[in-house]
């Protein structure tokens, strides 16, 4: 019987985090100690620590978005770029100098009037010390492009006119439905 197997401490720890064995009051006190420790840690954080944390927060927001099947108009490249510049506590004008990009170009990117090329994506990844990898910026752009294409009704309508004849599966669908 599997249940009778006696596991070593190492094996148990590798498969569990056991619930608290403390009394309710001791447990609360112990958790209060963690909160106090945490608050002290926050006060001690350097500006570099804070930037790092904000960048990772942004990174995982990006990841959650591009891995999800749903689309959201808010999460454009420009949104994440604005958040990135905000997370490092920099003015746009200073940031444009740091990544050697003309301020007008940066402004166009930030206002969704232009899409970044690969060189810009690389510079962003390098600037973050790869904390936000190149692939993340690239996935955000890809998803934005997909959304724009899906929503481009005028293009879909005009291009549909160029298809002289199309396959017709309506009878197959009807047959499946009638089964």
């Amino acid at each position, binding site marked *: 019987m*599997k*249940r009778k*197997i006696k*596991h070593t*401490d*190492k*094996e*148990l*720890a*590798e*498969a*569990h*985090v*056991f*619930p*608290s*064995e*403390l009394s309710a009051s001791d*447990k609360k006190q*112990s*958790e209060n*100690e*963690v*909160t106090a*420790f*945490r*608050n002290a*840690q*926050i006060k001690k*954080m350097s500006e570099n*620590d804070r930037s*790092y*944390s*904000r960048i*990772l*927060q942004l*990174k*995982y*927001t990006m990841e*959650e978005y591009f891995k999800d099947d749903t689309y959201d108009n808010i999460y454009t490249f420009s949104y994440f770029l604005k958040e990135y510049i905000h997370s490092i506590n920099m003015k746009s004008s200073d940031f444009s100098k740091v990544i050697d990009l003309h301020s007008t170009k940066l402004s166009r990117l930030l206002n969704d009037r232009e899409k970044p090329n690969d060189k810009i994506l690389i510079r962003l990844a390098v600037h973050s010390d790869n*904390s936000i990898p190149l692939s993340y910026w690239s996935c955000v752009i890809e998803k934005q492009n997909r959304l724009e294409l899906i929503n481009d009704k005028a293009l879909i309508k005009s291009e549909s006119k160029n298809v002289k004849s199309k396959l017709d599966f309506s009878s197959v669908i009807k047959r499946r439905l009638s089964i």
Partner: protein
Amino acid sequence: MEAIIEPVTTTDLRTIKKSKRFPDFNWDKEKKNEVYKLRLLESEAILGLMSLVYFENWIKINLLQSSIENIGEEKQYDRIAGCLIAYACRIAFRKGFDGFVALEPKTTLAQHYINKYNFQICGRHINTELGNSELLIQEYLNDDQ
């Protein structure tokens, strides 16, 4: 193997209870917390469970358990607990908690968590944050692993 971590459903909790693959703990009681399950992408079978409690600016792993066939020498899959702990770290970054995750270890097991996950002692709890939490995410949740 590709795995996924997602919130448990009420149906899952019923299955967990019936299956007897997560003995000794009443996961129904964890309903008041946020409970996540780890499963393989191609299967509905749950391999691990984790219950999280949220504080003002940190997260506590209240309970974590691998399924019975994944404990000990003959376990089918390794790294289940590590993946779930790393997932908690990821949530702690998303929430703006600087990746701060703590747990209250059994005294006899504390050193194991410290050695394996580089947790640090924080009173009767142990915790991970910032760089170490990101390392755990890279180690356990990176798609290349």
